[in-house]
Every structure is written in C-alpha cells, then in structure tokens.
C-alpha cells in the first residue's frame, strides 16, 4: 500500500506508522525517516518550501511506486510539507515497511535520494535578521547519492 501526501500541516509519525502496519502480519521491519529543518548555525528563522502542486504528488507517487517494486515492500508512506517550516520542525516523512530490515532500510534511503533530486520542491531561506535569504542550491552530493543506485543495478 502506497500513501503519498503533500500538506502544509505537520504530521504525526506514530499515527502514520500505526496506520501503515495495522493488520499486517508479514511486516518484520518498519523504517521511519523524518527530515527536519536545521537553523544552519543560528542563521535561519525558517525555510520556505515552494512546490509545483500539479506535479509534486504525481512525481513522488512515481518514485514511491518504483521504490515499492524494487524493494518488495509491504507498505510505503511519504509525506512532504510545503510552506514555512521553522528549525526543529518536520519537512518530510518516509515510512517503509518490509518483511526484513535490509529492504526497509534501503527503500527509505532510495526514496529519499530520489525525492531530493526529482520531487518538484524548492527551499528558500528566511534569515534570523528578518530578511529574505537565498534559494537553497541543489547539492552535487545529492545527485551522487541518487546515482549510486544506478551503479548498483549494473554491478
């Protein structure tokens, strides 16, 4: 079962985990990844997350379907927030349920790598001095993280 949501509100990690595993008897591993907003050494008041509403849900669902098939998951939940997020607050949730731990751990890692490089979201910094900061630059490390799954396929 795949659940994908894009929302402004915070999410309840435990409630989502309970929902995902309710009634399941073949789930031996549930991996929970929560991405939080950092203050970058006290610089940030908040991050603003802009998204492409028409495409975000479709694209994350495409990635989730690929993840579920590749790692033979029993269930996968992905929630991504948009709007203003303060340091310490949640940005993204990935829950991966599988029979065994390796598949669940790898699936959460894979889902995050692809979400970072393919989901149409853009972060902008709001600074503690009250001014609007820059758009966060995409990191080459994120591209390399996503690319390692392609190398794995051919090895």
């Amino acid at each position, binding site marked *: 079962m795949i659940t994908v949501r894009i929302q402004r509100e915070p999410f309840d990690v435990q409630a989502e985990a309970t929902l995902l595993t309710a009634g399941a008897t073949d789930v031996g591993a549930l991996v929970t990844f929560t991405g939080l907003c950092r203050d970058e050494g006290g610089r940030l008041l908040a991050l603003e*997350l802009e998204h*492409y509403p*028409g*495409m975000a849900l479709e694209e994350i669902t495409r990635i989730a379907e690929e993840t579920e098939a590749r790692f033979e998951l029993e269930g996968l939940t992905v929630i991504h927030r948009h709007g203003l997020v303060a340091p310490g607050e949640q940005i993204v949730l990935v829950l991966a349920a599988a029979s065994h731990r390796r598949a669940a751990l790898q699936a959460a890692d894979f889902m995050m790598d692809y979400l*970072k490089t*393919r989901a149409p*979201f*853009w972060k902008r910094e709001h600074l503690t001095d009250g001014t609007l900061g820059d758009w966060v630059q995409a990191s080459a490390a994120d591209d390399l993280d996503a690319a390692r799954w392609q190398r794995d396929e051919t090895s």
Partner: protein
Amino acid sequence: MKLLYFAWVRERIGKAEEEIAIPAGIETVSDLIAWLAARDEGGARAFNEPEVIRAAIDRTHASHDMPLAGAQEVAFFPPMTGG
C-alpha cells in the same frame, strides 16, 4: 500552451505562469528556452544559464531535447531542493 515558472526562475521572469501561442520553428524544450531568453529582459534574466534550467512537460520531467509537440503545460524551474 501554458507555461509555469517556479522558484528563482519565477522571480527572474516576473510571473508564475502565462499562456503563449508557440511560435513557428520552436520544436523542443531547448528552442523554447532560447526563445524566452531572447523575448524580453525577464526572460534573459531567468534563462541566462540555460544548462541549469530543468523542465517538465505535462507534469513529467523532460530533457532539453524533448519535442514540445502536443504539450499542454510546460514548466521551468531550478534543480530541485526538496526532502
């Protein structure tokens, strides 16, 4: 054809979306980027480094050599920074 712009592409071009009639001779994403860059100052600002621009055709990621034929919605945006 509907064009959508996000993040700093939106800010530089000065609008979130617009409707255009696709000009003759514009066949690919790359052609459209070059046309927008030459159209006005905002376009020049938004598309002065075309190689960093990402595009989507009808809500699916598209490379710059993809044909626009049949497209209803084309979006331009910087590399993504979600997650």
